[in-house]
């Protein structure tokens, strides 16, 4: 008798997914409406129908090392049309949240980011570090009275001393996590790096153009929201890099003029980021009935991003207004938020940037077909016809 895949449901895993935002997962009765309405699901073995039963049965091995949970862009068309209120979009989001923990190194940070109770500690660490540095540097930098200069408040060197190791740590943590993720997806071995790089080149334009978001119907305006967030964030990342070079290499003095191109880029990016966040947060709230309010991971990430943008903007405004105490306070809070964002990136929803990109590249590598645009179908069929003629 031919044997089958030996099923050993993990009841604990089911409960964990439910806690991570997939509380509705058991309601699915496998009608596959979700897979039919999903605008970005492939024709062959479409998601999220199959992921729903894997989740219900607690089949962790199938669910977590499956690139499809990352091909989902959380449009939530599926949740809006689900006749049972099973919210497949939220269940897939929960599975992704579980992945952040599952592939995390070190493990304890993965757990800490999943747990609401750890939140004060996670903020307390950067708060303490920066408070300590402010004490350390206080009075030694020779700030001119009446003039607000952040680098006199906290020397650039100190900041570099914190963020350079932090960035390195995040990069290492990401690398380890992604390696395990790729190995799992590929059935135990790493896929060849060359091919993966080639696939990455194929998918990067798709990501940058936000093609997938454009296909969503239920949450259309999320396209603009996510676009604003991504480009705002990238702009600020570039600004940070430029400032690092300007101050550390060329020893230019801050603050920069408002018409300095770097400053213009910084302000525009911050505005794009805030605008995008407002759109996304409003959208989340508006569709809470049909698509669900979102998970803890979502809100934490979005609010920290908002924190970064708002504290940055306020620090600048307070500086321009000449209110020293508030300017420095905002700057201090800004540093905490930035630290939170980067240091915990591999374990928070921030990590989706890396995981989804990797999964999309892997899907490209294995030739996982994506839905063909109708116009393309027409073109193809007309081509075929003309070739017949």
């Amino acid at each position, binding site marked *: 008798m031919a044997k089958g895949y*030996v099923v050993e449901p993990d009841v604990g895993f089911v409960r964990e997914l439910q806690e991570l935002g997939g509380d509705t997962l058991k309601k699915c009765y496998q009608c596959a409406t979700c897979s039919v309405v999903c605008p970005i699901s492939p024709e062959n073995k479409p998601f999220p129908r199959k992921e729903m039963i894997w989740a219900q049965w607690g089949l962790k091995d199938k669910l977590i090392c499956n690139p499809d949970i990352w091909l989902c862009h959380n449009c939530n068309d599926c949740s809006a049309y689900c006749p049972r209120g099973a919210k497949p979009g939220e269940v897939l989001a929960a599975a992704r949240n579980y992945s952040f923990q599952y592939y995390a190194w070190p493990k304890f940070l993965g757990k800490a980011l999943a747990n609401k109770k750890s939140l004060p500690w996670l903020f307390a660490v950067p708060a303490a570090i920066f408070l300590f540095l402010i004490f350390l540097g206080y009075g030694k930098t020779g700030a001119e009275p009446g003039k607000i200069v952040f680098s006199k408040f906290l020397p650039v060197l100190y900041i570099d001393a914190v963020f350079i190791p932090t960035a390195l740590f995040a990069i290492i943590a990401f690398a380890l996590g992604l390696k395990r993720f790729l190995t799992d997806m590929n059935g135990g071995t790493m896929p060849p790096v060359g091919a993966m790089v080639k696939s990455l080149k194929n998918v990067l334009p798709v990501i940058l153009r936000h093609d997938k978001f454009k296909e969503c119907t239920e949450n259309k305006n999320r396209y603009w929201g996510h676009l604003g967030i991504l480009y705002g964030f990238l702009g600020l990342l570039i600004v940070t890099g430029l400032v690092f070079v300007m101050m550390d290499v060329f020893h230019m003095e801050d603050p920069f003029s408002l018409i300095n191109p770097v400053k213009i880029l910084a302000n525009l990016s911050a505005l794009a980021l805030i605008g995008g966040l407002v759109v996304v947060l409003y959208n989340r709230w508006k569709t809470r009935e049909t698509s669900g309010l979102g998970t803890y991971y979502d809100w934490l990430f979005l609010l920290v991003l908002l924190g970064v943008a708002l504290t940055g903007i306020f620090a600048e405004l307070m500086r321009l207004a000449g209110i020293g105490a508030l300017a420095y306070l905002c700057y201090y809070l800004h540093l905490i938020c930035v630290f939170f964002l980067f240091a915990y990136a591999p374990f928070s929803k921030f990590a989706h940037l890396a995981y989804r990109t990797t999964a999309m590249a892997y899907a490209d590598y294995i030739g996982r077909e994506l839905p063909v645009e109708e116009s393309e179908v027409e073109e193809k069929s007309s081509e075929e016809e003309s070739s017949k003629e």
Partner: protein
Amino acid sequence: MEKKIGVYICTGCGIGESLDIDKLSEIATGEYNVPLCKTHPFLCGKEGIQVIKDDIEKEGVNAVVIMGCSPRVNYDVFKFPNVVVERGNIREQVVWSHPANDEDTQMMAEDYTRMTIVKTEKCELPEPHKEDISKDILVIGGGISGITAALEAANAGYKVVLVEKEKELGGFAAKCFKQLPTKDPYQELEEPIIATKINEVKANDNVKIYTGATVEKIEGAPGLFDVTIKSNGSSSTEKIGAIVLATGWKPYDASKLEKLGYGSPNVITNVEMEELAAKGKIVRPSDGKEVKSIAFIQCAGQRDEEHLPYCSGVCCLVSLKQAKYLRAQDPDAKAFIFYKDMRTLGLYENFYKTCQDDEGIFLTKGEVVSVNADEGGATVVVEDTLIGEKIEVNVDLVVLATGMVPSTKDEAILNLEYRQGPGLPELELFYGYADSNFICFPYETRRTGIYAAGAVRQPLNIAACMEDATGAALKAIQCVEMTSRGEAVHPRAGDISFADFFMQRCTQCKRCTEECPFGAINEDEQANPLYNPTRCRRCAVCMGACPERIISFKNYSVDMIGSMIKAIEVPDEYEEKPRILVLACENDAYPAIDMAGINRMEYSAYVRVIPLRCLGSTNIIWIADALSKGIDGILLLGCKYGDDYQCHFIKGSELANYRMEKVQETLDRLVLESERVRLLEIAITDYDKIPGIINEFLEKIEELGPNPYKGF
């Protein structure tokens, strides 16, 4: 009875404006010498009725002909005690469906006037058949359905005899550990209600209980049943009015399910699982180890041509319930359910949802390939799963969700001393279940006064059985009450006419005793029919069957309809006015024709419609009479027959169709085309097709040319 007929023509509802009423009156008073003929513009109104009442009182009118609306309306208005009332339908079927002040429309109304007067002349006042009857109710089966039926009848004030074959009351309901939800929101399991019900029925003074007992035989008819009950070696007899059959079900023989592992250790049926759970802890039968995982295999030996071809309707719910037992015992336990389709009818969807929400219950559609069980547990391999591949699960216990088999499947149980056999007639539609027609008539069987309830009728859960039993008890009460008044039960409820057999001319051909859909007619040793009036439903199928035409009712007879046909005036062939006779079943076809009129749909004025109690009461002689009179075509409109029949008398329209062979002989004898007689099935909702059916048939008849017998 010496008749004095009064004809009353209503001119309301457009009749007066469309017809020459004086001509109609002339027919009554001239052609038929009716002593009294009056017209009234609003006959069903207070004044109109008073006119008729006055004539009855002062003029001695004792037979009333109402020419006006359809007999299907105002029947409660045109009702006078001890007076024959006949209705001529010149509203729906004449003026509402044909052009006004037209020669053909007028001829139609005139014919209906003739036909109704002739019918009235032939009609006698029926008197009810009354006997000293018992109103006691026998309930066979002491499970949840039987006990409920007994209690319902007893609480309504009737004496009940309850017969249970086992030593204790309760049936399968008493074997349940927990019961499916019976009330809103249908989410949580309940403690079984059966224990309370057993105590209640035992304490009820109106209920006489026989346990360890069976029904040895049932003789007689509703109100007059002599039931012999065998109990503990001795027999006793009870006089019974009506019977509720609630003998329930038995589990399908699991020994035929070796393929699914039955017979190996740790493979049990859902019935055995219920017993296991009721004992306390769910443990492995092989070694007594506490069970941590169960695989439930749905449709075990069901929806399968080799076993039970049908769905038992409750097994999905039972498996969900039993999965809940396991989950309540151990929060880490796993229950797998492999199904073909999850069927949780009605509000039980809520219970299904609740079970789905349980993280330890794993559901998938799939085909079970193999079950390998031993002392250490079982391995179940399932393919075509929703997981997307063939899967294998290792469990402690396998539960086969086997189905229900009606207790009447192999045993008659009732042991009726009827000419047509000891049990309920098998319709070959319901796999041995004692069901008659699930759409229209729940609880009805083809044995008058015997009502089926619960799982013997169709697979049902406890809540549905209780509802069913309540309904059946009410039907039984209705039956004894109506029988005591000499009235027919459903579907001609309240009809007091009954069949009369003119025995001198009987040839003992047995057609009536064989064809009666309700087995109302027994036979003596010489094969003479022995008619039981209280079993009779008054469909008159026997009247249609009898070649000697010796069966008739006071107000419905072969002669009466024959005379109506003969009263139709057939113009000679040079006038080119063909005549079509429509014999229409009064349950569906006749109202459909009325509805066509109500909707002002026009059809040919060459038709003459006669309503029949059932198309099965059609006697071939009518066809012969009509054709030899020169009527050009005959249309028989009856209910749908076959698997999804809609005949109110179950076999009537089917028998009519069967008799069409004999009609063919008549046509051959007269050297007429076979197309001149056509039988069609029609439902009440087909009213919009009526003009099409009639006009199309007429076209066909016109093609054939006139009936050569015209003028003979």
